[in-house]
């Protein structure tokens, strides 16, 4: 509960601050208004832009559905980055892990012909396993050879992209009669059910049950960290690996475990995109999600609740941004700026720390300088 309030407060403050900066950007790029010196008009541009941003993310079933659909992969891949962070690893490879998981779930989705109650869980699980294996490679490389996970996960991203490109051209995956890399569609039974399927005929409500998968995954992540022995070991290793070694933890195996879980989460993100959003796979399956996930995890400080809150925020911005673009002159690119600003306001110091592995306590309350413990 305390965590929730704290992360809500941080996120809210960052949001307000970046909306203010965003407003300035809208005004100074509104050339017409500036030329005529009409600040009333500039103000109304800002007001309208933010109004449709808000309406596009929360106002009405359709907006909420869009927000949920955007949040789903962000949350799952955000968890992939978060759990690696908790174990002291910087996972840049959510993209590759998503692609891997997407492809395995895709295969289950079109190759088998079972009933929905079997196909859907099986395909999601296949995605988790595919992603986990792919993530595990980076963990294993680090544990065995010391190869830095930032480098290996970036390279594995490229490997995954080209692997997918190649796979989508094979007869096993490629849709018949198509020259471009597009996969066969999954069977109808394998599709994740629509959340608003009960509202007849509303095909525009794209939110699917992948969101429930993501929420369950978040719950699992919380349980793993707080309640399990392995979670305890992961946290200890991430916070102080020397102490973890001293305590007899197998820090190398834990690296692999952290990356297996990370890949599993990202793999499910790929799976829900394939099984829920698209129904097939293409090369743009992962998009930018794997990288946005880093921002989500940083903003959420890798906590389960924080990751959930920031994924929701980014999902909402994405949904709102599209409606803003459609309804006003402000381009959707502003959303990218806003997201970058939010992350900067909240997490830049954390990012710097994580990258340089600075071992220090959280800076809150001027807690930095404690003597030799004193």
């Amino acid at each position, binding site marked *: 509960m305390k965590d929730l309030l704290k992360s809500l407060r941080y996120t809210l403050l960052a949001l307000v601050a970046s909306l203010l900066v965003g407003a300035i950007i809208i005004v100074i790029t509104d050339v017409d208004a500036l030329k005529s010196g009409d600040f009333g008009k500039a103000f109304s541009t800002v007001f309208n832009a933010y109004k449709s941003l808000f309406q596009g993310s929360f106002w009405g079933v359709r907006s909420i559905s869009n927000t949920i659909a955007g949040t789903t992969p962000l949350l799952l891949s955000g968890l992939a980055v978060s759990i690696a962070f908790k174990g002291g690893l910087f996972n840049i490879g959510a993209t590759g892990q998503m692609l891997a998981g997407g492809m395995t779930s895709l295969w289950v989705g079109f190759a088998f012909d079972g009933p929905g109650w079997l196909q859907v869980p099986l395909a999601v699980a296949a995605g988790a396993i595919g992603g986990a294996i792919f993530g595990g490679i980076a963990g294993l490389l680090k544990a065995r050879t010391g190869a830095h996970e930032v480098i290996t996960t970036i390279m594995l991203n490229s490997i995954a992209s080209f692997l997918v490109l190649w796979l989508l051209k094979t007869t096993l995956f490629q849709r018949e009669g198509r020259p471009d890399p597009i996969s066969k569609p999954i069977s109808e039974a394998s599709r994740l059910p629509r959340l608003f399927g009960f509202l007849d005929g509303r095909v525009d409500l794209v939110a699917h049950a992948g969101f429930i998968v993501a929420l369950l995954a978040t719950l699992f992540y919380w349980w793993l960290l707080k*309640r*399990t*022995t*392995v979670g*305890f070991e992961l*946290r*200890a290793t991430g*916070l*102080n690996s*020397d*102490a*973890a*070694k*001293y*305590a*007899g*933890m*197998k820090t190398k195996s834990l690296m692999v475990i952290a990356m297996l879980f990370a890949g599993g989460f990202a793999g499910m993100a790929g799976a829900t995109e394939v099984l829920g959003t698209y129904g097939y796979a293409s090369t743009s399956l992962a998009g930018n999600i794997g990288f946005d996930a880093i921002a989500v995890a940083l903003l959420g400080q890798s906590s389960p609740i924080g990751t959930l809150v920031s994924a929701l925020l980014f999902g909402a911005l994405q949904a709102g941004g599209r409606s803003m673009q459609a309804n006003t002159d402000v381009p959707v690119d502003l959303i990218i700026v806003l997201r970058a600003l939010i992350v900067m306001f909240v997490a830049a110091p954390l990012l710097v720390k994580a990258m340089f592995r600075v071992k220090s*306590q*959280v800076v809150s*309350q*001027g*807690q*930095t*300088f*404690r*003597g*030799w*413990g*004193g």
Partner: protein
Amino acid sequence: MKLELRGITKRFPGVVANDDVNLSISTGEVLALVGENGAGKSTLMNVLYGLYKADEGEILIDDSVVRFTSPADAISAGIGMVHQHFMLVPVFTVAENVVLGIEPTKRFGALDIDKARQLVREVSDRYNLDLDPDAIVEDLPVGVRQRVEIVKVLMRDAKIVVFDEPTAVLTPSEIIEFFSIVRTLIASGKGVVFITHKLKEALTIADRINVLRRGKVAGAADPKTATEAQIAEMMVGRAVQLTVNKKPATPGDAVLNVQNLSVVDPDGRKVVDDISFVVHAGEIVGVAGVQGNGQTELVETLSGLRRLNSGQITLDGKDVTHSSPRDLHTSGMGHIPEDRQLQGLVTGMSITENLVLTRYHDGMFSDGVKMKWPKAKEIAKELVANYDIRTSDPEQLASTLSGGNQQKVIVARELSRDIRLVLAAQPTRGIDVGSIEYIHEQIVKERDSGTAVLIVSTELDEVMALSDRVLVMYRGKIVAELDPKKVSHMDVGLYMAGSRPTESAGAKS
């Protein structure tokens, strides 16, 4: 300059760390600040240094009120602080570290490193610090690093310098050097605040001694007339046993048997050189030696954290030469590591979690998948009470504990396990006299119940008081085995320095 703290109150969730504290310090004097672990000494100094904002009270310089919102304010008002955990960049040179933040620059903002070097040399000469501006900090011993910190403070024109437990990590000879630096500082018109748990040091160097207790000023003592016992009583509120009370040991079977152990460090130096010794059940063996003579490596090897090059180690007759830390833990080894924040604790975890850090996998706390937190919390509560760990709530982060209380967490955890052997490196570093008494009692109790104890400490007094046998390490070898009841401190000191007393009273080898 006269600095005064008036009515300072600082609260943390659940505790009043400073409660209406008054204190003054002038240039030209050394004020020693002593008090139990968690009495609020560090907090008070952090308030003075602008790191914490006091909830109540004010700071006066030469009778006018000043307000510090950050260390920068305190520094410009002439206050300097040397923290125990040094704030140095290991890969930089001394000169680069010293000018960090106040870099002298040439045109276009280029760093004027020659100027920096010269500045370091000047300050170092003026106060007899003997520093090489071009040395890389990570190559320097702790005592020298501390002098780098001192130069940093002096370069920023500090008039009052605060030292928070500066001697806790220093070797006895470094402590003597440190005192002569303090005297030089005083002679050149600075004032010094000196926090310590070693009352002898306070009596040696201080002009005045102030005692804090549970956040309040408990009184002042005059170093010319006061005794250690009096100050200890003022700190703790009861008479403290300053010597160790123990019966003669009744050694049983060999528990730890080390044969021809050699360890070579990554640079190829032989840090532990063909060592053999035995620790029996029911005895305390102390390893004395000047820091850096292989004790650290010896303990790390025995605890499974470092690879050995040759030799054999057995625990209760079982070969554990290549065992992992986990195997050693389950075979009954307890280990109090030398550096509490580096190894002994995960400060970002709760006190409870730290109290089970080395036995969380035990069936009592884990069923293999899930942790049994209620059980862990129950044990934590017990340990917090028994070891007098000062906290309002064991679910708080270990980083909120005062330094000495962090140490108590480690000692409590390691001694409360089911153990056959304890490796204790600097077990009472940073701990107040009252708690030292308790910890020593616990160690003796462990011994009497048949545990083998190996104490490694640079604190000669502690080794001599606690041990039944003393081994002296010098340059990776054991150069003497002594009976602490029969040798003088002086003689042990000579062995530690690599020479041999002429009349080898009490020496067995």
